[in-house]
């Protein structure tokens, strides 16, 4: 078994150092080492999308990255989307549109949608569906999720949704 390594990274704007074995996935590192259990683990081979987080602003599968690969990178997780007291605009929109039931897939979908709208706040329905195709949801049938993301665009257009993961 390989020796643990110290990895320095920024998570939701906070600098942290964590000691991990090379085999530790970023998803497991976030959940077990940093106790950020908002990032869910479904399939552990890159299909379901539940573990999606942002690495330097780009949506990626946290189960298909090693923790040792994020040295010096800025990570954003679902915990960074909301303020201390209130939900973020994307989360508000999901609530308004009943875009979740069991909620297992929701953190990953929120992060993909956040990355998309931060880069492309005018994304059309086809683009939203394309990005959403990287996620499995077994409850909703996807339609309320599409509506929720489309409805959240305005907040991103007027800059009300601060992009997360731009570590200081």
């Amino acid at each position, binding site marked *: 078994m390989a020796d643990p390594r110290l990895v320095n990274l920024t998570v939701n704007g906070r600098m942290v150092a964590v000691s991990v074995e*090379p*085999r530790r996935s970023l998803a497991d590192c976030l959940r077990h080492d940093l106790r950020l259990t908002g990032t869910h683990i479904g399939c*552990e081979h890159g299909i379901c999308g539940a573990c999606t987080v942002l*690495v330097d602003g780009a949506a*990626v599968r946290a189960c298909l990255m090693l923790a040792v*690969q994020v040295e010096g990178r800025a990570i954003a997780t679902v915990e960074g989307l909301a303020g201390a007291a209130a939900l973020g605009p994307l989360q508000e929109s999901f609530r308004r549109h009943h875009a979740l039931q069991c909620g297992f897939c929701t953190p990953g979908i929120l992060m993909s949608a956040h990355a998309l709208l931060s880069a492309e706040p005018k994304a059309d329905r086809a683009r939203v569906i394309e990005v959403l*195709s990287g996620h499995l949801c077994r409850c909703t049938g996807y339609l309320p999720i599409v509506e929720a993301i489309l409805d959240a665009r305005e907040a991103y257009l007027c800059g009300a949704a601060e992009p997360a993961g731009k570590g200081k």
Partner: protein
Amino acid sequence: MKFPPFEFHRPGDLPEAVDLLLSYDGEALPLAGGQSLLPMMAFRLVAPKALIDLSAIPGLDGIELNGDSLRLGALVRWCDVLCSPVIANAHPLLVEAVRHVAHYQVRNRGTLGGSLAHADAAAEFPAICLVSDAMIDVVGRDGKRCIAARDFLLGAMETDLREGELVAAVRFPIWPAGRLWHFREFARRSGDFALAGVAMYCDPDRQAGVCRNWHIACFGLGEVAQRVDAVEAFLEAKPADTAHIREAVLIAQRHLVADGDIHAPAGYRKALATELLGRGLNEVFKAVAGGDG
């Protein structure tokens, strides 16, 4: 499943990476984007003693247009291809193909060098290299080698890479103005591995109403992407009409090799590939007649 244990190295240049790979006597693997390798490790299809992370090696992510070629570094990611104005002009067929690679989230990590070295039968990028007569630059113990895509891709997950060799870059010939192209694949869901696909291009001679320099490849149906040389030769300078499309499809049926698996039987995959080929030729011929493209 969790990954099996391995040692981890992050070399700072290519010679160091090659030395590290060789030092494990074939039991280390290079790690690029990890979007195919890590799932394979999760399933224990591979369990390398060490991963050699290539991300700290400078100069592997370049997109350069030189006099006679478009050179893409091995660590260029799919998302880089999709947002590059240089590639949009220099290889529009590549851009269209990359739109079909996996999903948005995977395209933010996956690299073209990784795809090529992995050599999945259904992967778009090896097929585009094959159809475009791309040259693969590899680096190993004895220095550099250049390999034609046709000689590089040997079978399902099988390439001409020798022990300790790494893909450094891929070079595509310059794309002339006015070239016509077509890309189409069929997968059961968006982002799935294609059951079959086709990529083609040709250079139209609009006054004569014909196309020359046909390049056609089918992928996803057999062990490895296939150039259909017989169809290319048949179509050379043929008038753009439906009789020639029908004949081309018949020739393709005789030459393409298909395999079946749990997703689709061989006969279905071949029928799908030849249907996509026929539709593609129809589109290209329409563009010759219509003068667009």
